[in-house]
């Protein structure tokens, strides 16, 4: 049931066509499946394996290496609260306590309504704006307890729907290359000459 939808299969085929080897599309397709289901399901991994002609074990092994792929049911919104140095000094732990209290769940778990998953995160590269958090990888800066409450209210009321896509990963910023403008990638095994930027001196 959590295989890729027909629309996403069409998209998957377009993504696969961008690479000279099908297997190269593995990670973008796992992103796609996570966008669809909120997390990477076993069925989706089997489906991706079929699409790029590898074994499900390869998909699982590759995907599980990466922190941003999730393998447990995840809320529509994933809130990552940074706890690294600058944020920690400026109240990240208090913020996390507040968040846990407000949402009624511990870090690492999901609210009973399936809307929000809360988790600890490492540095989000915005130390000047500490403490920070991300909602579906969209930044929020200098977050206070009140800001957090407003954020949750807005998420629940749907006010942020246009700004924050559900089950968001960074994969939403998807390039689309029209067929007539695609260069067409060459299969590595078919490459006979050296790279164009290297002058090959006649031997």
């Amino acid at each position, binding site marked *: 049931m959590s295989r890729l939808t027909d629309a996403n299969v069409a998209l998957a085929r377009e993504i696969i066509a961008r690479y000279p080897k099908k297997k190269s599309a593995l990670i973008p397709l796992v992103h796609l499946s996570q966008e669809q289901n909120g997390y990477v399901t076993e069925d989706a991994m*089997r489906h991706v394996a079929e699409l790029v002609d590898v*074994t*499900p*074990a*390869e998909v*699982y*092994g590759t995907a*599980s*290496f990466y922190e941003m792929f999730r393998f447990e049911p995840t809320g529509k919104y994933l809130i990552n609260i940074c706890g690294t140095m600058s944020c920690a000094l400026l109240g990240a732990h208090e913020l996390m306590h507040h968040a846990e209290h407000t949402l009624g769940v511990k870090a690492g778990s999901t609210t009973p309504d399936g809307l929000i998953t809360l988790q600890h995160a490492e540095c989000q590269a915005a130390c000047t704006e500490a403490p920070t958090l991300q909602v579906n990888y969209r930044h929020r800066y200098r977050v206070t307890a009140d800001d957090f409450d407003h954020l949750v209210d807005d998420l629940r009321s749907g006010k942020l729907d246009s700004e924050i896509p559900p089950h968001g990963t960074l994969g939403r910023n998807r390039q689309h290359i029209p067929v007539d403008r695609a260069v067409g990638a060459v299969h590595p*095994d078919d490459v006979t000459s050296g790279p164009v930027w290297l002058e090959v001196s006649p031997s």
Partner: protein
Amino acid sequence: MSDTVSAENDAPPVDPNAVAITVNGTPITAQKGELVIAAAERAGVYIPRFCYHPRMSSVGMCRQCMVEIDTGRGPMLQPSCMITVTPDMKVETDSPVAKRAQEGILELLLANHPLDCPVCDKGGECPLQDQAYTHGPGESRYVEAKRNYEKPIPISDHVLLDRERCILCDRCTRFADEVAGDKLIHFIHRGNLTQVNTFPDEPFASYFSGNVVQICPVGALTAKPYRFKARPWDLAQVESTCTTCSVGCRISVHSSRDQVLRHQGVDTGTDSVNWGWLCDRGRFNFEAIDADARLGEPLVRTESGHQPTTWAGALALAKQLIDGADSIGLIGGARSTNEGAFAWARLADALGIDHRDAQLGDGLPASVLGLPRATIDEAANATTVVLVGPDLKEELPVLYLRLRATAEQRRLRIIEVSPASTGMTRYAWRTVAYRPGSPSEVTKALGAADIAEQLAKGDVVVVAGRSNLAESETTAMSVLSAVLAAVPDAKILPALRRGNVVGALELGLAPTDSDHDALATLRRAADGSLDLLVLLGADPLDDCPDTDLARRALAGAGRIISIDTFPSASTRHADLVLPAASFAEQSGTTTNLEGRVTRVTQKVTAHGTSRPDWMIASELAALLGHDIGFASPEAGTALIARTVPAFAAATPAALDEHPAGVVTGPVTGALPAASSADAPPNGYDYRLVVSRKLYDGAVNTAMSPSLAPLAVGAAAHLHPADFDKVGLAEGTEVTLTSTTGSVVLPLHPNANVARGTVWAPFNQPGATVNELVDASAPVTDVRIERLS
């Protein structure tokens, strides 16, 4: 030396590939492109290692092989499995810096590895244990708790994984990827949490899974059939050759208290057949050696069934049966050693037996063995392999591994001719899918421009066997003729399956012509004109593609003597059953499909009073007033080398010198003219394809508790698109009817089966699909009906 070299040659020839390097102050000569770790090992300097394996690519995972390497920029620590030799390289493997690095790595590896060696199966033969003693610091500074995992978890039917012992060397996962091509185990997660595992509910169901147990450098992977059975120091081992199929992998047979407990693959180096790998069937079917069902004493038929008797009584009865027979047929011998087959051939010569055959109507005419033969190395390194034969992955698994490896690297192009998709199809450059019984279609397809162009490049090897047991050998022979016509210097590798079939055929158990082969013998028996049928390790009822013929033959034969290791469907019909010694219970030699003669070695006492085939022949010959000419396997090997021209090089001394075997030359012969007439379709709808799976009803598989449950079971496999045509659902019990008989089978969808054909695995528990096959017809057509 110098006085044997002529004047103009007094400077020794310079090897263009030689690279002079220094290891620990000693100058050595390495080969261009050689890894430092391998060059040092050849020179007698062992560098500790866990992930490095000479038959797989280097990955530098474990970092244990750190040495100091100086290429002119000063000594630097480098992993010696990742660095190839360069001229004037200086390597220090046990300098203080290198030792400190090696000790540091071992301390890190042991930070999480449990010290449960006393209860670990690997303890005593564990590279980690051994190298912790030889290259380790002796003490650890780690006091923290170690990782814990649920233990053990099964990753396949044979293999268990204790994850906390794993040191993440990537050997098993690399094997699954590079060697087996079954990438079903993988590193999962990252960093300290990394573990080897399968996809959930998708086991490492590879035919080669046992190899990962052998190459695991710690006790993380263990095999169920051996687990907790013995300690390595209690095992005694001998080197031998696996005779499960005709690839002839070198193995070492390990036993304790006169019981075989495991087989390990042996890599004999440059001339190795199997590179140290084994298939799971060959690795685990040792369990059959001491199965309870083994025949332990001679049996004679009485009114109240088979009764045990003495050997003296049995041989006297055998003499009586032979003396009283005007016409005798001898079928079998492929299970024997060379000496056993040779002894029986000499006895058959003495008795004037014309009807003899080591195959059962499921192979090729013995004349193919007279053609120039390729070795497995030559086939794997050829430009083109034309594969017309069985699914190599199912029947000759290690040959599949060898060909797959070079095809995957695009060094070899395989042109596969098959009526159904096989394990090799994925790696084939071209696949000619043909309808059984239409050799003209195949020869036409082989004439296509791109294939003709590929064949014209030369260096062609034809791997020839039977791709379909429900079809005569016509297709294989016409492909062989067509390729030989296009490429006259093409070589052939016969893909005949039975362990020593090539040896038996070449040592005198080949029929003179098709009027005296196994099928002709069975036909004669069925007609009632054969007085005595001798079955030498042959079970026509289960193993001949034409069951109906076999049944009539066993009923019609005057008398039957069966020499076998287990009671079988055919031994039940025998008037006299003589128990034979099985693999690991007798010494001798065997011949693989290349014609390579290697030693097989006795390791345990033969079961009950069972005797080797050669000894039975020898005693019988003496009773009958003949002499087979030798009285020990060793003398038999010597006699074969003296009297059989093709085996002249396989002397006992040569076999001692070359454990990898001596490749015997073929006796030149001519190929019989192949008929390329197509079989016309008859009134039945589907053409039958019957071929073997790795795990089937073969006695050594069926009698091994670890392997028997893996047989897929009898079924009729149909292309999914043909299901609509027959209007039946998956799993329906159907009746398959041919001109000779009918069987009831469940119907399975299988996209590997060509449309318009139905595929059924041979010799599977559940039903006897061979009932459908008429060996005298070129093809078998069947009708599919719902079981009413």
